[in-house]
């Protein structure tokens, strides 16, 4: 699974900690999602999509990470 979380976060000028706070998860979780080491649960993926105002498939895609 690949995602655009790092890019979207950078566009808004948020740190990993700030994003983690907005999503009510740990900074470690945000880091693991951004680096592709962890795929978020469906509720968390929806929360990310809601936060960025985009559909889930615009942030996460099923292609394997390079």
């Amino acid at each position, binding site marked *: 699974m690949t995602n655009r979380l790092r890019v979207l976060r950078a566009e808004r000028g948020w740190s990993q900690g700030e994003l983690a706070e907005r999503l009510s*998860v*740990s900074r*470690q*979780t945000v880091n*693991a999602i951004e680096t592709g*080491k*962890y795929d*978020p*649960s469906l509720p*968390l993926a929806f929360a990310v999509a809601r936060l960025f105002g985009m559909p889930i498939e615009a942030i996460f895609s099923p292609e394997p990470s390079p």
Partner: protein
Amino acid sequence: MLLYCFRVTLIGLLMRSTNSRYTRSVLGLAIISAGLALGVSALDRWWALPTTLRPIVVLIPVVPLVLFLFRIARWLRDLDELERMIHHEAILVQFGATGILVMSYGMVAKAGLVPDFRASQVFPFLWFAIFVFWCLGLVLVRRKYR
């Protein structure tokens, strides 16, 4: 008692980054269980307990232990999702490692290469091993998601 103290310290380390409400109650239940185990052991040694009551009395320390495990389960459910997965994987490591340790020791003991301990002699050490392997599992699994 020393092993119980170790266990309490290990639980504290495992739960260091989480809700203090859970940490307090889990540590409290572990201490109550240790205290009851010592109390029951002293009672059994110095007082002649009635035969009918004895099985119930000697199992009293298990009650806070069961509550302790339920509390750990509640604590795990309330964790951040990645942290919860890390703990689940660490528990798998702990389960496998404890099982392999017990089975290997049993096989070696059966072959007469090491002393064959009775279950009543080793159960406090088993608890200790469980928590050591949980910590070891956490270290190994955390590296994967760092």
